[in-house]
């Protein structure tokens, strides 16, 4: 599926205090996609996001929104009205929840009669229905960030920028908000840029990943491509913690989901823990340390997933090796040096990869499309 490129940047550079803090050769944001900028603190995620949002003029380079090159202040001001941003801190105004959600609409000059139903709709969609008249100062962290998200979504932006929106929330509020945001991103199909240092967040929300280190994008690609095939040790340490597989739910019984992976000529069936509806497309993850390799199938084992395949790549990773396999679909496994020599693992070697159904976890059910 080809999609319109909404925002694109070439040779962006940002200098601060004489030092270069950002250098991005090329970045394209396609309509309807969620792009996650990932990296450790200080990698330049926020700087890149502020630059893409037109809030930080780059020292050099070009930024284009649709057919306009964002060059003058007037261009950036016009662009500012087509996008919006949610920060780590909710940054609510000292007034009611309803007036907070309406604040952007008021600034955009939307008449009051049109504001009210839109505010009520988005309060409901973010579970704030009963809090509209509450003072924003008296909200919990999760409620405050939901208000900030409602204030952003209600504007129907062309691009939604999310700068570490979950980082200051406690674990419980964070989980439910990630679920709801994933659903809303899928329902609205809004183009979004998310910055995060958490690979779980990115895996649950993004279609594409850009991994950043020291102000540069070190790898950019589809979610599964980057997660499954990190190009260098830094990216691997940051994201390569599990193999992502996409499949369609065949059955779901007693918390055990059976999925069909459609890759290559044969269908493969994988068993996973979780709840899903038959027919739903889901994304599951398997950690390489949970994948065991053997030379033949062991029928007496409790392992529910076993796939014959061939080794495609052996990558040394310090005390162990990462083995990439082609089982009709991609799979990665970690083995020790001893196993490597005992099993004679090298590219082309036929092995059986197995992992327990309890090692496969459901990552997401929403917002999956053909690009993923």
């Amino acid at each position, binding site marked *: 599926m080809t999609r319109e490129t909404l925002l694109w940047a070439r040779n962006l550079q940002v200098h601060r205090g004489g030092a270069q803090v950002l250098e991005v050769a090329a970045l394209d944001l396609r309509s309807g996609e969620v792009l996650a900028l990932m990296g450790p603190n200080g990698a330049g995620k926020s700087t890149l996001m*502020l630059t893409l*949002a037109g*809030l930080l003029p780059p020292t050099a380079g070009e930024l284009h929104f649709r057919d306009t090159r964002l060059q003058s202040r007037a261009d950036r*001001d016009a662009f*500012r*009205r087509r*996008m*919006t*941003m949610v*920060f780590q*801190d909710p*940054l609510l*105004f*000292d*007034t*009611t929840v309803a007036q907070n959600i309406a*604040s*952007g609409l008021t*600034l*955009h000059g939307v008449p009051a009669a049109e504001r009210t139903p839109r505010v009520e709709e988005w309060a409901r969609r973010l579970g704030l229905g009963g809090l509209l008249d509450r*003072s*924003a*100062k008296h909200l919990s962290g999760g409620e405050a960030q939901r208000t900030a998200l409602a*204030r952003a979504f209600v*504007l129907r932006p062309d691009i939604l*920028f999310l700068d570490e929106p979950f980082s200051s929330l406690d674990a419980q509020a964070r989980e439910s908000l990630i679920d709801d945001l994933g659903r809303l991103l899928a329902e609205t199909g809004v183009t979004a840029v998310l910055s995060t240092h958490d690979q779980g967040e990115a895996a649950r929300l993004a279609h594409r990943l850009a991994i950043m280190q020291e102000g540069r994008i070190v790898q950019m690609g589809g979610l599964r491509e980057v997660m499954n095939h990190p190009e260098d040790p830094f990216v691997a340490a940051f994201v390569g913690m599990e193999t992502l597989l996409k499949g369609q739910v065949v059955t779901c019984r007693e918390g055990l989901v059976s999925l069909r992976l459609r890759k290559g000529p044969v269908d493969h069936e994988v068993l996973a823990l979780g709840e899903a509806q038959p027919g739903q497309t889901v994304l599951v993850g398997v950690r390489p340390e949970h994948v065991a390799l053997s030379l033949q199938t062991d029928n007496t084992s409790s392992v529910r997933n076993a796939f014959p395949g061939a080794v495609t790549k052996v990558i040394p990773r310090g005390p162990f090796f990462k083995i990439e396999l082609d089982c009709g679909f991609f799979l990665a496994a970690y083995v020790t040096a001893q196993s490597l020599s005992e099993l004679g693992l090298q590219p082309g070697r036929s092995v059986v990869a197995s992992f327990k159904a309890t090692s496969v976890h459901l990552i997401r059910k929403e917002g999956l499309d053909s690009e993923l």
Partner: protein
Amino acid sequence: MDLIWEGLRKALELLLTLDPEVLRITLLSLKVSGIATLLSVVLGLGLAVSVALNDFPGKRLVIALLNTGMGLPPVVVGLFVTVLLWRNGPLGFLGILYTPLAIILAQAVIATPIIAGLGLAALQHLPPGLRLQILTLGATRPQMVWLLLKEARLPLLAAVMAGFGGVISEVGASIMVGGNLKGSTRVLTTATVMETSRGNFEVAFALSFILLVLAFSVNALLTHLQQRSRPR
């Protein structure tokens, strides 16, 4: 002790009979200090906003100067304004020395740094990301400034109160640039000084009492505005 009771009795009498001279002095005080405060709100908040929202070399020096200006001694201001407005001074051609306008000018010089300094502190206390957040909600620059002022409204009203309190109660500048002329530049503080020096303590008490009530009423009004704007 008798003196105090006598003073309070006289004060009540002057108040209750609405003594025309006292009424005129009181209204002039209110008018002069009120206009001076309004001028200072415009100048002081303008200064606070431009310092808070812009980065420029010497910003720290400007902030230090503003903070020092918050403690400007009224007599020093009186001296400088007198010299400026003196017949042969640079602004002598205006011919406003010893008029209420001169007092307004001097009091604005006193209150502007107070409102600018406290206003700047109020704006700098807002979350640093708020400006960007307001811009990403589609605000123009004037809209952004307005929203920031609205967010800081509680400490800003406190700054206005401090400015008004500073000028309604000062005497040094008023007497130097106004001259305490009966019927034209006599205000509550300068009249109090004069009556005390003449030994008319009961009149001095009466004027002081009125001054206190005036300061209290204006601040009570501003406090009411400040607290009312708090959401539940």
